[in-house]
């Protein structure tokens, strides 16, 4: 029977492991050991494990810092057990180890999700460059089109820089998470996903604005656009999870939608105290679009004046005393 010594990393995940054949294993910093660890708090000859039945008997070989048993499954049933069962976790120096037999079961293989393949395609410089340039151009154009004071590149530059650095940080965060959780980083893939979402956001914002303006429908801009943006965030989160983690599709969606619902709840909670509060100022739909984007018809002055009666009736209702 061979014994497997796993070196554990942050969060109890196995970083690497040693496989030792034979009835006994020595662990220490010295090269004569079966398992050689470079932790400076571990003694040259730190401990020895001898196979006893289903478990191992541990002997401290006079180490400086001793051995700490973090978890021993055998102690669950018998607190006085001296034998370490398979799955025992110990700490020597600053290193955590797990001791298991080679018959220890491993998790079933996970199917590669489709996104993995599709989104994996995104992890390319040749996709990133045009996307990045497109986002940059749209960013500059939007700023330029909304600037009615004298155009100054230095002001525009700082605004663009802030946005792009923020997007870069997001991509770096996801890339880092992937490196940690899956030991692979799809940094460019994440970056491209975020850039794509930015493009969809710009396009939808513009489109909903125009539809809302033409229909005189403030709720499209007020309610539908934010809800659409939140769903966009959910999709973006889920795709990023797919690239950076080993979560199953269901878990990904639950987590992403859950996060978005959380954002929604927080923003509603922020507004809830303003609901029903009196405002001395009128809230009217002030959106204006270029004449070429004004597609619908218009009513006559007479029709407009006639339509006001309803407005007065509603105002009376709003002023009713409780």
């Amino acid at each position, binding site marked *: 029977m061979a014994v497997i010594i796993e070196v554990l990393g942050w969060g109890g995940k196995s970083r690497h492991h040693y496989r030792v054949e034979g009835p006994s294993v020595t662990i220490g910093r010295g090269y004569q050991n079966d398992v050689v660890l470079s932790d400076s708090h571990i003694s040259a000859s730190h401990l020895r494990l001898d196979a006893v039945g289903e478990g191992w008997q541990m002997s401290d070989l006079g180490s400086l810092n001793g051995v700490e048993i973090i978890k021993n499954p055998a102690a669950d049933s018998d607190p006085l057990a001296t034998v370490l069962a398979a799955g025992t976790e110990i700490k020597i120096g600053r290193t955590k180890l797990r001791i298991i037999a080679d018959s220890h079961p491993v998790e079933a293989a996970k199917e590669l999700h489709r996104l993995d393949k599709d989104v994996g395609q995104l992890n390319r410089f040749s996709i990133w460059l045009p996307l990045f340039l497109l986002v940059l151009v749209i960013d500059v154009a939007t700023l*330029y*089109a*909304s*600037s*009615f*004071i*004298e155009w100054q590149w230095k002001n525009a530059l700082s605004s663009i820089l802030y946005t792009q650095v923020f997007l870069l940080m997001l991509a770096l965060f996801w890339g880092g998470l992937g490196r940690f959780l899956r030991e692979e980083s799809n940094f460019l893939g994440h970056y491209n996903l975020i850039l794509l979402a930015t493009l969809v956001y710009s396009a939808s914002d513009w489109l909903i604005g125009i539809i809302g303006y033409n229909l*005189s429908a*403030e709720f499209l801009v007020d309610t539908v656009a934010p809800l659409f943006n939140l769903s966009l965030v959910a999709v973006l989160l889920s795709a990023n999870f797919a690239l950076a983690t080993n979560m199953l599709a269901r878990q990904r969606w639950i987590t992403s939608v859950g996060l978005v619902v959380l954002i929604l709840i927080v923003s509603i909670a922020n507004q809830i105290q303003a609901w029903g509060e*009196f*405002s*001395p*100022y*009128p*809230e*009217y*739909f*002030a*959106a*204006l*679009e*270029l*004449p*070429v984007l*004004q597609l*619908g*018809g*218009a*009513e*006559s*002055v007479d*029709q*407009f*004046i006639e*339509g*006001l*009666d309803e*407005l*007065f009736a*509603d*105002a*009376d*209702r*709003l*002023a*009713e*005393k409780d």
Partner: protein
Amino acid sequence: MAIYKTTGLSLKILLGLLLCWHISGFTQNENARTLFAENKTAIFQIRVIDVTSGSKSVIGSGFLVNAEGLIATNYHVIQLAASKPEQYRIEYLTAGDKIGDLRLVDVDVINDLALVSAQGLKAQPLSLAVAEPPIGVPVFALGNPLDLGLTVVPGTYNGINQTSYHPRVHFTGSLNAGMSGGPTLSEAGEVIGVNVSSAGNQVSFLVPMAALHELIVESQNSSGAAGGMTRRIGQQLFDDQEEKFSRMLALDWPTMPLGQAQVINELKPFVKCWGGSNSSSEKAQFLSADRTCRSEDNIYLRGKFNSGVIEYQFFWLEANKLNAPQFYAYYQRLFADFVPGNSAEEKDVGDFNCDDQFVISDDSSDTLQQKANKKSKRKTKTVFCVRAYKDYPQLYDVLFLQGTVDNSHGAFLSHFTLAGVSQKNAKAFARKLMGVAKWR
């Protein structure tokens, strides 16, 4: 040579002038002294007392107008007692430190007047002037400035202000807080106006006697405030706006050009107009010219609630150096930034209720020639907001906003707010304004 010859004569004239000046100064002081002494028994401090705390919340002045104990003061002095009679009572304090209770008889919110009466008050009432004194005569305002005791403020009568719809006497002299509701007397000792407000720097205003005469007659003839003071005030507001708007809407509104648009000029005596533009600014990327007209009338109702304001405003915009999207970015910013011309609180009015529509501005008043010319039709975005008064039925504050949306490089924007207006009048005003103010 002639100078030397006339020296003696000029000296005499100078001496004469000095003497006259001295005498007139003397008589003015003498007059103030006699007026004060003769009339102080008929002038009181009016106090509004909070029933719960038993102490005064508001002080003002008032004066006896007839032998039955009727005292005139300002509505704004006794406003708390008028709107919350269960919480506030009114009392008077004589120059001789005698205190007595007052009963609210009637109010005139439009002219900021109120009548209160005292039981068994024995004093000689002040005589009320029937005719207007000549402009420039010295007059004397009496009252209790800042609770300092009865005080005389000499000043000059400057006639009835012709630039506001509700007339006010322009008094050059300093009215201070607490003098509100006190009388201003002529040298003959007749009341020529009721102290009401100050614009600072010796510019003060009095309510003309005509309004007081009318209120006294009304309070004696009819049951006055029967049915409650709130109902009475509501009726006065409604009647006042009915008369004001019927006069204003019957006028042929004078116009003037603003850019390529035709806008409404000063509607006398309802509003005063100002205007401006950014054309002198070198950094300006676009042209913006505006004309703003606003009424001087401001009817105080209570707390932070006032009404009676009429305001209309026009903007002419040209894109100049801006491209179309940039111009519209500015235009939208301007369009989003309009607020009502009066102030009100939650207890006074409901929330604003707004609607926006695309409207083709094309009025029946257009001539056939204009109708044939398609350019007189303009597509606009038109916003209308209404809020209703909680205590005064059938009265509303409205805000109107109309901007052209069919030109990429220019725009014409009209805005008005009317405070305390009926539905019928607000609609008629909107219709008339849309017909007159337009991009030609």
